[in-house]
């Protein structure tokens, strides 16, 4: 290898490394949260439309029930999301997520922190994502809130008809709540 070749290879390596650093620098907490939400949203929409909507509402083969285990039924889409969130928590994956609402059926899922309230309002009123930082139990988190939209008839009828719902006029395409993703910052 002559001098010129050596200089070229050093330059190429430096460029590659610097471009990797730029790329690595781009994976911000916000990017990570957006990517996680895309997966959560896609999985849940697929389950709602291809499994629950089809088997319960269209083909009437099986029902989806809150007490799915006892009633030998399908879990509700919201429960499916929550079960996934619990598995992620148990696996210590470095982030957590939850499905919350300003009109929750289960009151444990109403906003608790100021940031959750602000984020859910932003999602409902402006159909926009919301990003911020908050401290919970002495730890600082990057928190993102994404609008959760009714994707099928199954979502709308179940929420409107439920005995504990505080809102009975949801329509397909309405924001029903929000997905909250948290990534610890330190």
């Amino acid at each position, binding site marked *: 290898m002559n001098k010129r070749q050596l200089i070229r290879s050093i330059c190429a390596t430096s460029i590659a490394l610097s471009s990797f650093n730029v790329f690595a620098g781009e994976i911000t907490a916000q990017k990570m949260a957006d990517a996680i939400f895309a997966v959560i949203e896609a999985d849940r929409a697929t389950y709602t439309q291809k499994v629950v909507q089809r088997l319960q509402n269209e083909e009437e083969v099986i029902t989806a029930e809150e007490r799915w285990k006892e009633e030998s039924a399908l879990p509700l889409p919201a429960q499916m999301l929550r079960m996934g969130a619990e598995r992620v928590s148990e696996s210590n994956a470095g982030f957590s997520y939850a499905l919350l609402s300003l009109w929750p059926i289960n009151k444990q899922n109403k906003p608790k922190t100021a940031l959750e309230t602000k984020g859910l309002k932003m999602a409902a009123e402006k159909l926009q994502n919301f990003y911020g930082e908050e401290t*919970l139990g002495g730890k600082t988190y990057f928190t993102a809130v994404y609008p959760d939209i009714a994707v099928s008839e199954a979502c709308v009828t179940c929420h409107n008809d439920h005995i504990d719902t505080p809102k009975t006029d949801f329509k397909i395409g309405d924001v029903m709540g929000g997905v909250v993703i948290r990534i610890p910052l330190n």
Partner: protein
Amino acid sequence: MIKEKEQRIKVGVMPIGIALTLIIGAYLGYNLFEGDKSLFLGGETSHGHYQIELECQACHTTPFASQEKMQQACESCHAEELDRVNDSHPKKVFLDPRNADLLATLDARLCVSCHREHKPEITRDFGVTLAADFCFHCHQDIKEERPSHAEFEFKTCATSGCHNFHDNSMLYEKFIAKHLDEPAIKDPARLPEKTGLKRWLKKNKKKLPLDVAEPQMDSFSFEATNQATVDLSRVVEDWKSSIHARTDANCTSCHTQNVSQNHNSFTIASVAPVCESCHKRQHKAFLESKHGMRLALELSPMSTDKARLEVDKSHSKSLDCNSCHNPHSLNVVEAAMDSCLGCHQDTHSQNYKNSKHYQLWAQEILGEAPSGSGVSCATCHLPKVKKGRRVTVIHNQNLNLRPNTKMLRSVCMNCHGLEFSVSALADEALIENNFIGIPTKKHQTFELVKQRMKSRQ
């Protein structure tokens, strides 16, 4: 002079101190590893754990084990059951950082936050060591959410027929609403029939019942581990008409043929593992029960002399599969009642033969009433549970007692309406007299659910 005297005293005391320390150390050390470990118990152990209290490492894993290790020990025995009943407050829910404030008050991720062992003075039902109103810590605003609950005190949340911290698999609104206004006694009142034999026969259509010629018992002598005299002809007779003979289980299916000795003999070293080779589900459930929990830790079997419950201690009887099941006749009628009453002598057990349930059982075994119409001890405590097309006997007799509303679907509701059943299970005096009579109080749950249903219309 005085200084010299003081020094002499100090020199004289020191060897005594060292000697005493060594003696006490040796005494404690011996008892820790070889002798009486009960010296180290921090207080009387709860009803759930006393059978294994001297197996310290079963819970403490190692001396000075971390909280995490001890939590793993709890989960190694209890996690599967909690998952099976869809635990209402699983640990995983509390891992979400939004619940950090709740954990600061009550760390629900750890079993020991509510169940502290060796604390008899504060231990309540199900080994709970928190005050009875513990729900308050997280559900203070229940009055706003459910105005109908405004008058209730927090210490009544877990009353039988209302709520449970872990298992609410029987107590949800939709189930209760579906079974409102059912009669006290259903018509017909029938228990499901077991499907094990039917399934086996369906799979083994060509297998005929075995006969005496096949085991060739006459060429063997029998050697039982307890050296008891065995009436061989009786054994053969019992076996011949048993379900084992019908299902291709020969002597050597359970007994090892000992050919190394100068005579042929059958021995059986340990009963439970032999039974397990065919009856896996039953064996697993048995090891999870108070009857089998010592065997699960490879300790000597539970025996009547170790029992805290009121049992017949005039003879020491240890618990294994054949304590309840005669291994040759496999008489399930005997196993369903006589085996239980052979040991248990508490008021509930002693009242059984005066109950309507027993009358029905007696009629059934005499052939005067249809199959499935009688109620034995096993009907309630070792229930036949239907899952899909399969009906099997659950061999963990504690399972549906914690809480007792677990009996509703698999036991009571085969014959009784839901409201009658819930009221009966909440009536402690009625349980004690073995259900002689009917529940005296109506359970409030049903009125609340009816009101909720009305408010919806």
